[in-house]
C-alpha cells in the first residue's frame, strides 16, 4: 500500500505564479492605456499594433520550445530575411504562389536543418552556431538579391498583407499565428513530444537514458524554427510589400526578450506558452503606448529592458520572501 499524507496547500506557490503576475500586469497596462492614453482605443491603432507583431508572434513559438530544450536560435531574423528574398525572387521569376510558398517553406527548413546538423551531429553549442548562421544566412540573402528589392507581388498576396478579416479589426497577417499558437500549445503541454522537450531541457542525460532521441528531437526543433521563420518571412513580405535582404534586422533579440519575459527559463526545462503570450501582448501594448506618447524606438527599448530586468529581480525577491514565510510556518512545527 502506498502511504500518502494530506497534500499541504501550497497557496503560496499558486499565488506567486509568474503567468498570473504577467496577466495582471498586462491587464493593468491595457486598462491604463484604454483610459488615459488618447487615441489608443481605436480600431485602427489596435489592429495596426497587432499587425506589427505578426512576425514576432510567429517566431516566438518555436523559440520557446528551443529555449526549453536548452538551445537557442539567434538566426531567426536572418532566416526570415533569406526566405523572403527567396520568395521574392521566385515571384519575380514568374512562379505562381502555389509553387513559391511551399518552396519557400522548404528553404526555411533547409536553413533550420543546417543549424540542426551543426548542433546535433557536430555537437556545437547553439548560441555560437546560430551567431554564425545569423551572419551567414543574411549574407546569402545579400548575395542573392544584392541591395535591391522585390516589390511587385500578386494582388491576393498583398491583400493578405493589408486587409482585416471580415468586419473585425483582426488583420490577416496575425492569422497564421492564431492558427499555429494553439497547435504549439497543445504539443507543448499535452503531447509526448512536449514532454520529451521538457525532459531534454530538464536533464539531457536522463532524457537520453530514457530512450528519448535527443538528436532527432533537437534537429526537428531547428527545422521547425526554420519553417516558421519562412512563414514569418512571407508574412513580412506581404505586410511591407517588400522582399529584401535587410528585412527584420534585430528582431531576434526582441523575440528572445519576449520569451524570457514570459517566464521561459534560460536554463531550460521550465516555462510555458501562456506566459509568453501575455508577454507578447504586454510588449506590443507598451511599445504602442510609448509610440503614441511620441517616445522613439531606442527609448521604447529602454522601457522593455527595464521591464525584463525588474520583473526577474522581483520574481527572485518574491521567491526569497515567500521562502521565509514558508520557513516561519514550518518552524512552528519544529517547536512542537
Amino acid at each position, binding site marked *: 500500500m502506498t502511504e500518502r499524507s494530506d497534500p499541504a496547500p501550497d497557496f503560496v506557490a499558486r499565488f506567486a505564479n509568474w*503567468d498570473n503576475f504577467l*496577466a495582471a500586469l498586462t*491587464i493593468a497596462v*491595457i486598462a491604463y492605456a*484604454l483610459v488615459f492614453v488618447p*487615441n*489608443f*482605443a*481605436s*480600431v*485602427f*491603432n*489596435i489592429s*495596426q*499594433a497587432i499587425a*506589427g507583431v505578426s512576425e514576432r508572434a510567429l517566431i516566438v513559438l518555436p523559440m520557446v520550445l528551443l529555449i526549453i530544450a536548452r538551445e537557442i536560435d539567434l538566426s531567426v531574423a536572418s532566416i526570415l530575411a533569406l526566405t523572403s528574398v527567396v520568395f521574392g525572387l521566385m515571384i519575380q521569376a514568374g512562379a505562381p504562389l502555389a509553387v513559391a510558398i511551399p518552396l519557400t517553406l522548404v528553404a526555411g527548413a533547409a536553413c533550420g536543418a543546417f543549424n540542426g546538423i551543426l548542433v546535433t551531429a557536430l555537437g556545437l553549442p547553439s548560441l555560437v552556431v546560430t551567431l554564425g548562421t545569423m551572419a551567414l544566412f543574411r549574407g546569402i540573402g545579400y548575395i542573392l538579391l*544584392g*541591395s*535591391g*528589392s522585390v*516589390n511587385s507581388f500578386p494582388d491576393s498576396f*498583398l491583400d493578405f*498583407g*493589408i486587409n482585416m478579416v471580415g468586419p*473585425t*479589426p*483582426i488583420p490577416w497577417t496575425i492569422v497564421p499565428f492564431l492558427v499555429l499558437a*494553439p497547435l504549439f*500549445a497543445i504539443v507543448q*503541454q*499535452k503531447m509526448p513530444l512536449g514532454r520529451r522537450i521538457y525532459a531534454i531541457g530538464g536533464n539531457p542525460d536522463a532524457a537520453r537514458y530514457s530512450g528519448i532521441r535527443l538528436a532527432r528531437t533537437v534537429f526537428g526543433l531547428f527545422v521547425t524554427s526554420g519553417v516558421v521563420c519562412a512563414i514569418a518571412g512571407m508574412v513580412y513580405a506581404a*505586410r*511591407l*510589400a*517588400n522582399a*529584401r535582404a*535587410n*528585412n*527584420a*534586422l*534585430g528582431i531576434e533579440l526582441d523575440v528572445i526578450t519576449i520569451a524570457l519575459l514570459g517566464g521561459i527559463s534560460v536554463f531550460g526545462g521550465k516555462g*510555458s506558452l*501562456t506566459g509568453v*503570450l*501575455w508577454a507578447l*501582448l504586454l510588449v506590443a501594448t507598451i*511599445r*504602442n503606448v510609448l*509610440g*503614441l506618447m*511620441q517616445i*522613439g*524606438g*531606442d527609448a521604447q*527599448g529602454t522601457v522593455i529592458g527595464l521591464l525584463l530586468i525588474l520583473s526577474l529581480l522581483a520574481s527572485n525577491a518574491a521567491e526569497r520572501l515567500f521562502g521565509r514565510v514558508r520557513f516561519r510556518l514550518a518552524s512552528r512545527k519544529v517547536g512542537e
Partner: protein
Amino acid sequence: MTSHLLKSLLLASSLIAVSSLASVANAEECATGPVTVGFLPKLDTDPYFQVAQTGAEEAAAQIGGKAIKQAPSQATAEAQIEFINNLVSQKVGVIAISANDANAVAPALKRAMQQGVKIVSYDSDVAPAARTVFLNQAAGDSLAEMMLESMGKLIDYDGEFAILSSTPTATNQNAWIDFMKAKMASEPKYAKMKLVQVAYGQESEQVNQQQALGLAQAFPNLKGIIIPAGIGLPAAARAMEQAGLLGKIKLTGLAPATLIKKYIQDGSVQDIWWNVKDLGYLTYYAAQAVAECKLTGKEGETFKAGRLGDYKVGKGGEVLLGPADIVTPANVEEFKF
C-alpha cells in the same frame, strides 16, 4: 493549462471587442484650418532633419498649426511603419515622410490615407501612388549632374571613381546614382571616367570611414569618391586625412556645409548643398495646402510658401525647392548648416 488558455483567449477577444466599440476616427475630407503635420524623417540621429524641422517650426509659427517630429532609431522601413501608424492614431492631418524605402512604406501610407490622413514626402520619395506631392530639395538629375560634373572637373574627366552612398535602400540616393549612371552612359564627355564600385556607409560615422578607406585600398588607381550622403562626406574626408590621402583622392558630394567647412576652405573637397531649413519650411506650407485640398499634386498647380514665394508642381507631383549651390570657400559662410 487549458483553462488558462481559454481565459487568455476570452480576455483578448473582449479587449478587441471593446476597442471596436470605440469611435472610428474619420478625418474630414478637407481641413478648414491649419492642422498638425507629423514629420517622419529617416533617422533620429541625422542632424539634417533636425535643421529641416526648425524650418517647419518657423512656418508653423507663421501660419498656425503644429509641426511634430517622430523618427525611428533604425534607418529601416519597418521602423518607419510603426511611426506612420502612431501618427495616424494621433490623428495628425498630414504626414510628411522622408522614406527609408520607397516601396516598403507604401502599404502603410495607403492605409493612412484610408484613415483620412494626407501624405506628402520630402527629401526621399515614396511610391507616387502613396503620396500627394513630393518636396524635393533639388531636381534629382540636376543634383546628379552637378555631382558628376564636380567629380569630372576634379579628376579631369579621366580615371576611376567610386560612390559611397548611405543605405542600400535609400530612395533618393539610389535615384541619384541611377541618374549618374545614365548620364555617364549617354554623354561622351564622361566616357573616360569609370565607376568601379558603389559602397554603403549605413549612415554611420564608423562605417563611412572604414568604407572610404577600404575603397582607397582596394582600388589603387582610385582618383575620386562621390558621396551623396550627409554624414558620409565629412567622415570620408576625415578618413582620407588620417590616411594622408586627402588631395590625392578627390571628394565631392552632398553634405551639410558647416560640417565640411574646414575641407572646403582648404580646397580639398567640393560640396553641393542647399538651404535645408528652407526645405522644412516649404514642406510645412505644402502640407497645409494639401490638408486644405488646395494642392492635389496635379502638374501645374501652384501654391504660396510664405517667404519663399510661389511654387509650381512639376511632373509626377514633384515640387522642387530650387537649384542647389556649389559650396565654395567664398560662399561657405552663408550656409547656416
